[in-house]
């Protein structure tokens, strides 16, 4: 208990570790929030366009046009007489006017119309003219389902992102990938705790050669390693959980509603990072800070390839060099988290978790074997 308490204190006192695993990722997410939070909404929301309607005939074609346009989300029908509407159009107060004739709809645009305005207003008119035969039949037969379906189609054309129903459980947002990559980066940096753990057992590695004392003490190496591992794991899990909490609450990025699987992800990913850190500590050469720096370089590379800076990178690898995604730990962790949050079917999430667990077991086995054979003292 005494060793566990001091091991916790040691880990929490390690400012570099806390910075890289918590402060830096949360700060980065904050800046992502400033930069990205409104982009997706802006790109995917169309403000209703103010339009007027002038009827030049009185038949089912013209009367039903009014019914249809009144139910389209992207149009805001301005109810004024013809003269007023033309005045408003000339002053750019409305974007366009539909002039509904006997069997055709003409469109008049304001002087400063935009391409988007033009596209939206014209699309509605074209669609109405093209599908009117169908609507006429429906109206004649009293089939209102067909009429409603037509209006729904018109509304749905405003969605730029089409989602495959049944695959995603949350609304996807490509910018969220940056947040998940940042969370994964923080988890990956828990590896620094693993580097420090093994350094404490190597007299020729640590900044202060405390391994000499622990090695000659009556405490077995197994106890020292396990105490160090689990105390660091506890700190890592708390940090990761709090980072995810911050992401969800403060930056409004979903973590999903599957708590057991999320706990599994946090546990597996942190154990993986710690075991990877042990490998860095054991196989890199030089003093502990050099080993840490080399580990940092590897982690940053892995995180970059997982799309931390360019979110489309994993997609590019998926198309041209899928092996990179398969062997890059940060991408594997990213996929696991992303699929946990968004996919209804969790099979692919569990596949990623199995990969992580297998790698963790491999790393821990190799680290244990290497540590058992370690000779501490130098000449």
């Amino acid at each position, binding site marked *: 208990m*005494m*060793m566990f308490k001091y091991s916790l204190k040691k880990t929490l*006192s390690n400012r570099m570790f806390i910075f890289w695993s918590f402060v830096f990722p949360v700060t980065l997410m904050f800046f992502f929030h400033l930069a990205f939070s409104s982009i997706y909404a802006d790109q995917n929301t169309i403000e209703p366009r103010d339009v007027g309607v002038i009827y030049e005939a009185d038949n089912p074609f013209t009367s039903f046009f009014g019914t249809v346009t009144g139910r389209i989300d992207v149009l805001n029908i301005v109810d004024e007489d013809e003269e007023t509407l033309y005045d408003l159009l000339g002053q750019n107060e409305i974007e366009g006017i539909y002039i509904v004739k006997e069997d055709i709809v003409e469109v008049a645009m304001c002087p400063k119309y935009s391409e988007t305005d033009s596209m939206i207003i014209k699309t509605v008119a074209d669609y109405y003219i093209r599908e009117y035969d169908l609507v006429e039949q429906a109206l004649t037969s009293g089939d209102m389902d067909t009429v409603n379906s037509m209006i729904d189609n018109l509304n749905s054309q405003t969605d730029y992102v089409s989602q495959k129903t049944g695959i995603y459980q949350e609304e996807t947002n490509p910018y969220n990938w940056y947040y998940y990559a940042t969370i994964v980066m923080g988890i990956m940096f828990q590896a620094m705790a693993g580097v420090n753990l093994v350094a404490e057992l190597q007299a020729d590695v640590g900044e*202060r050669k*405390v391994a000499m004392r*622990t*090695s*000659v003490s009556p405490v077995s190496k197994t106890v020292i390693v396990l105490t160090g591992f689990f105390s660091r794991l506890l700190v890592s899990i708390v940090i990761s959980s709090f980072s995810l909490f911050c992401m969800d609450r403060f930056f409004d990025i979903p973590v999903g509603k599957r708590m057991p699987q999320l706990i599994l992800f946090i546990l597996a990913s942190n154990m993986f990072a710690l075991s990877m850190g042990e490998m860095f500590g054991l196989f890199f050469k030089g003093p502990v800070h050099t080993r840490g720096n080399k580990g940092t370089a590897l982690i940053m590379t892995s995180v970059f390839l997982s799309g931390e800076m360019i979110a489309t990178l994993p997609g590019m690898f998926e198309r041209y060099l899928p092996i990179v995604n398969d062997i890059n730990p940060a991408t594997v962790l990213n996929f696991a988290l992303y699929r946990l949050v968004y996919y209804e079917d969790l099979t692919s999430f569990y596949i990623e978790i199995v990969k992580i667990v297998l790698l963790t077991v491999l790393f821990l086995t190799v680290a244990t074997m290497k540590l058992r054979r370690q000779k501490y*003292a130098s*000449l």
Partner: protein
Amino acid sequence: MSSKVISVDNLVKRYKELIALDHFSMDVDEGQILGLLGPNGSGKSTTINCILSILEFDSGDIKVFGKKMTPKSYDLKRLIGIVPQEVAVYDEFTVYENIDFFCGLYIKDKEERKKLVNEAIAFVGLQDFVKFKPGKLSGGLLRRLNIACGIAHKPKLIFFDEPTVAVDPQSRNNILEGILKLRQGGATIVYTSHYMEEIEQICDRVIIMDKGQAIASGTVDELKGMIKKSELIRIEVPGLDEDTLSKINELKNIYTVSYEDNILKVEAGSGKHNVIDIINILQDRGLRLKKIFSEQPTLNDVFLEFTGKELRDDL
């Protein structure tokens, strides 16, 4: 009869082509302070690391408290304390926490540990610094903390591996006095250093090491007695005659006698009473002595005679 606390027999340790320990043997009796003296790379630290089982050796036999020492000899490790050459403490912990942590590796009972930690703090005089972190301590205070971490659990056998390197003279004296107190408290001590003055000051027995071998061992006086180098005595005494010179020359252990510019120079072999014997002769003849100098052989002279090189050359 005192029992053997450490028994090392024919220890051989190789680092690839380099022979770090070459059939090295030594014994340490209970309550003794044994000094391992030798230049850097002579094998002192390697010897300690082999005894502590943190370094594998190629051949030989090591027993501690009469039992074979292995990495899993936890019962023996419980009796041992180590003060490493470099300050081995955690920068993240305070002085108190460092001592408490390392003491806790040996002592599980919280109350007992608290008492021992406070005793260790008092022993090294760090009472005013218990809440300081190592980064705030001076070199001398750090060394004291290093010692406290090694002795807090009251070990029966303590290894001091060059504990005074880069320490100011005052702190060095404090450390040496502390080591003598630990011996008085019943501890057996192995002390390595390349400072011969320290070895002479505190060690009951000395092993001089070079190139992994014990080239000489014994008490300080015994070691000095092993060499031919004489004691050089210089006495300023006016009016010395030939008869007196020949009388001095007839004394036991006297090699050469000369007299020039009122200075009598005598080279003598090993002996405790050389100066007194000469002074007695001079005073019997009513001569007035002005200044007396005596240069005793040092352990460096011993090292020089055995190896053909100065101990200090390697420092």
